[in-house]
C-alpha cells in the first residue's frame, strides 16, 4: 500500500486534534504550551509531506520558519510562566485572569 500525502495529512490532523484537546482540557499552563508545540509539529508534518510530494523544498523552508517561531514562542511563554509563578505560586491557567498584577 503506497503512503500518500493523505496519510500524512491524516496523521497531522490527528496530532493537531490531540494538541487542541490538550490546550482545551489541561489547566497546567506548561502542558498547554507543550500541546501548542504538538500543534506546530502537526503543521510541520504537513508542510514537509507536501514538500516531499511536490519535490519542492519550499515546504521545508517554511517548516524551519515554524520552528523558529516555536522557539521564540517557547522562550517568551516560559518567561511569562516564570513571572506568573513568582507572583502567584501557581501555573494554573484558570488563575491567570488578570491583565497585570
Amino acid at each position, binding site marked *: 500500500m503506497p503512503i500518500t500525502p493523505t496519510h500524512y495529512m491524516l496523521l497531522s490532523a490527528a496530532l493537531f486534534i490531540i494538541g487542541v484537546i490538550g490546550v482545551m482540557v489541561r489547566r497546567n499552563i506548561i502542558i498547554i504550551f507543550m500541546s501548542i508545540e504538538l500543534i506546530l509539529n502537526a503543521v510541520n508534518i504537513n508542510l514537509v509531506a507536501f514538500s516531499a510530494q511536490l519535490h519542492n523544498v519550499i515546504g521545508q523552508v517554511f517548516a524551519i520558519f515554524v520552528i523558529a517561531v516555536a522557539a521564540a514562542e517557547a522562550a517568551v511563554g516560559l518567561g511569562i510562566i*516564570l513571572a506568573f*509563578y*513568582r507572583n502567584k*505560586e501557581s501555573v494554573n491557567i484558570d488563575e491567570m485572569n488578570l491583565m497585570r498584577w
Partner: protein
Amino acid sequence: MFDTSELVINMGPQHPSTHGVLRVILRLDGEKVVDAEVVIGYLHRGIEKLSENRNWTQIVLLTDRMDYVAAATSNVGYCETVEKLLNVEVPRRAQYVRTILMELQRIASHCLWVGTHAMDIGAMTVFLYAFRERELILDLFEEFCGARLTYNSMRIGGLPQDIPPGWDKKVLAFCDIMDGKIDEYETLLTHNRIWLERTKGIGVISGPEAIGLGLCGPALRGSGVARDVRKDEPYSAYAEMDFDVPVGVQGDTYDRYLVRMEEFRQSLRIIRQATQGIPEGPIVGKVPRLIKPAAGETYHAIESPKGELGYFIVSDGKSTNPYRFRVRPPSFCNLQGLPRLVRGHLVADVVALIGSIDIVLGEVDR
C-alpha cells in the same frame, strides 16, 4: 525554586571536602550563600575533661589526638605549659630539637593543607605531590619516636630520647629536597589563572575584622596582621632563630595561600638553622619524679601550624592531675570566622574557604 525561595543545604557531616566531620548548614539563594551555620561536635571525645583525670605525663598522649596532623606541636605546647607551671628549665639541646620537630610538623601540616585545599578547588595532582613529601617527614618522625601520626614525642622537661645518630643529616637532606618541591607546588598553583580566579577576592577580611573574629595564625596573617607567637612571645629556641613572618595584603584566600607557601620556606630556614646549631648537652631538665605542680594557674601559647594554640592549666597543688585543663584550639577560633567569610559567596567558594582557614576537626571538637 531557586528564584523564589531560599534553599537550605546541609553540607556534611559526611561530605568529601569538610575535612572530617564538619557540618555546615548553608542557606542558599540560587547558588549564593545567604548564611551559614557551622555545627560542630561530631568528633568530641572530651579530651579536656579526660585530662583532668589523668596524671600530668599521661596527658601528652591525649594532646596527640587533638590536632592529629600536627601532633608534635600539640605535645610541645602542653609540655611547655607544664614546664612553666613547674618552673623547670629545659636544656638547650631539647629546645633545639623541639624547634626542629615543630617546624617539620608545620611543613607536614601545611603539606596536608596545600594538598586538600588544592584538591577542594579541583587540582588533584598537588594533593598527591604534597602527600609524597609529607611521607618523608613522617619517616623522619618515625625514626625519631617510632610513630607516624600520633607521636607522643615529648616529655615534660625535655625529650623522651636523644635524636638518632645521623638524623640531623637526614633532616638537612630533606630540606634540600623540599625546596624544589615547594617550587613545584607553586608552579602548579600560584600563577595558574584558574587558581587565581578561584582564590582572589574570595573571603576578603580586613585585619581589624579578622582580629575581632578571633582569627589566628595564617588566616590572620593573610589579612596583614603580623601576629606570630614565635616572634611576639618566643618559646623553645625561636628567640635564637632568624626568620620572617609573611603577611598578606588583601586578606583573601589567595593571600592566605601565599602566606602559607611562604611559611614553608621560613620553616625550612628555621630547620636549617636549628639543625646546624644543635648544642650538646642533656636532653631532659631537672623534673621531679612525681610531677605535682604547686597550686596555681598558667596560660601558655605556641604557634601551631593552624595558629595560636594555647593551654590554660590550673593545678590545685594536691593531686597528680590538673585541676582544670583547657585548650585554646586555633582551628576552633578560625572556624567561627567561616560564616562571616562565606556570606555572599557561591557554594563552590565555601569549600575553598573551609580549605583556606585550615581546620582539623579533632582540634575543633577535642
